[in-house]
């Protein structure tokens, strides 16, 4: 396990050059844990195998906003890997028979362990049932029928993580990060805002439902309430839609979130923020 988490950019094809529309995801729970320690929580989007009939608790993959992926890469906490279906198929086709055999052996070894464990459990059970008159039937022999049942009940898992990924992914360099930003002005503006907030200790999550670009938490969202609804970054010379501001600030007051207006200027790296709340009268 490397120090840096690996973030995969999916949803593209080899011919694509607009990388700002790629989707950053993680599959490895250790990596998810790592980036969480760096203040990036992300959004779980996969069905949870154990409870597939609800939308409240989801599992891997974890989806990030592009801002998060870029920040983690820039801060040196993660590497970005671009992957496409074509590359995957290509590397599958190029697999050596030995590699494949090695993996197959690993799989059957694991299944073997499962079977072993099941056998032991079975024998244990037999012992407790027939413990007293053990001489009637030997309790260390498993009948074919039972053996068959056990084999059928071995669990075949669909693993989260790919064995092949290393072979088909292409590392995205810092230069390409800049290219992603160059493609998308809105993302470029918002990235400045994201970065400033993150470096102020905030955890961000997508905020459209709450009427903003981000909802910002003062620490891990598992433990803390969110504090801010942050609007899309804007030029400081842009008109403020007062009705929209009144809406946001009114809403903010009732749900205890400050409505934050971030302004960016091309000559300054750091954005300026104004926080707005209802005054409590009028």
């Amino acid at each position, binding site marked *: 396990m490397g120090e840096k988490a690996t973030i995969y950019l999916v949803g593209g094809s080899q011919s694509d050059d607009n990388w700002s529309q790629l989707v950053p995801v993680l599959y490895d729970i250790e990596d998810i844990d790592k980036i969480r320690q760096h203040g990036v929580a992300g959004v779980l989007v996969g069905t949870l195998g154990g409870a597939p009939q609800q939308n409240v608790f989801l599992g891997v993959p974890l989806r990030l906003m592009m801002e998060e992926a870029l920040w983690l890469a820039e801060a040196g906490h993660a590497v970005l890997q671009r992957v496409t279906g074509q590359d995957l198929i290509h590397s599958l086709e190029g697999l050596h028979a030995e590699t494949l055999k090695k993996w197959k052996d690993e799989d059957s070894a694991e299944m073997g362990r499962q079977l072993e464990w099941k056998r032991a459990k079975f024998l244990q059970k037999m012992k407790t049932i027939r413990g007293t008159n053990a001489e009637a039937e030997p309790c260390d022999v498993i009948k074919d029928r039972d053996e068959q049942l056990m084999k059928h009940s071995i669990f075949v898992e669909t693993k989260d993580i790919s064995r092949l990924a290393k072979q088909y992914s292409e590392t995205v360099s810092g230069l390409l990060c800049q290219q992603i930003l160059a493609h998308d002005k809105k993302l470029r503006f918002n990235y400045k805002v994201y970065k400033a*907030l993150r470096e*102020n200790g905030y955890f961000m999550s997508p905020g459209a439902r709450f009427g903003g670009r981000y909802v910002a938490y*003062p620490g891990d969202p598992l433990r803390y309430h969110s*504090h*801010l609804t942050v609007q899309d970054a*804007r030029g*400081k*010379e*842009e*008109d*403020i839609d*007062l*009705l929209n*501001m*009144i809406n946001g*600030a009114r809403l*903010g007051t009732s749900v*205890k*979130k*400050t409505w*934050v*207006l971030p*302004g960016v200027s091309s000559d300054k790296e750091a954005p*300026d*923020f*104004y*926080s*707005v*709340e*209802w*005054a*409590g*009268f*009028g």
Partner: protein
Amino acid sequence: MNGENTALCNAVFTNLVYQQLWTETKIVDFGDVSVVCGIPSHKLTNDQNDTETEGDGQASTATEKHFVYPILMHQYKNSGLTMNTIDHVFSQLPNTLKRLTLGIVNDDGTIVYYFIYKGLRKPKKN
């Protein structure tokens, strides 16, 4: 200060004195920015910062002066308020001031008030 500005300040002034019942209310010019200053009739906020400095919760903010910057909001045209405008207003006011009150004069006859803080400000805790 132009005529519309004076009229705008007067509208907010009247509203603060006679509807919101503020005291020590007056219109003050800071450079080219005019604001209405005054003291609310009762304590407005008791966010955490207030309670922390107040010790046993005596209403100290009630005597704190508020600076209200008036702005006109029409159903049918833009207000012209930008972040640059807000920068400018802050730059003219005493530089210890962290909070500006925006007095939005609507064309339906009501005036609504919003606080604007420089930078990031966490919400009231309670």
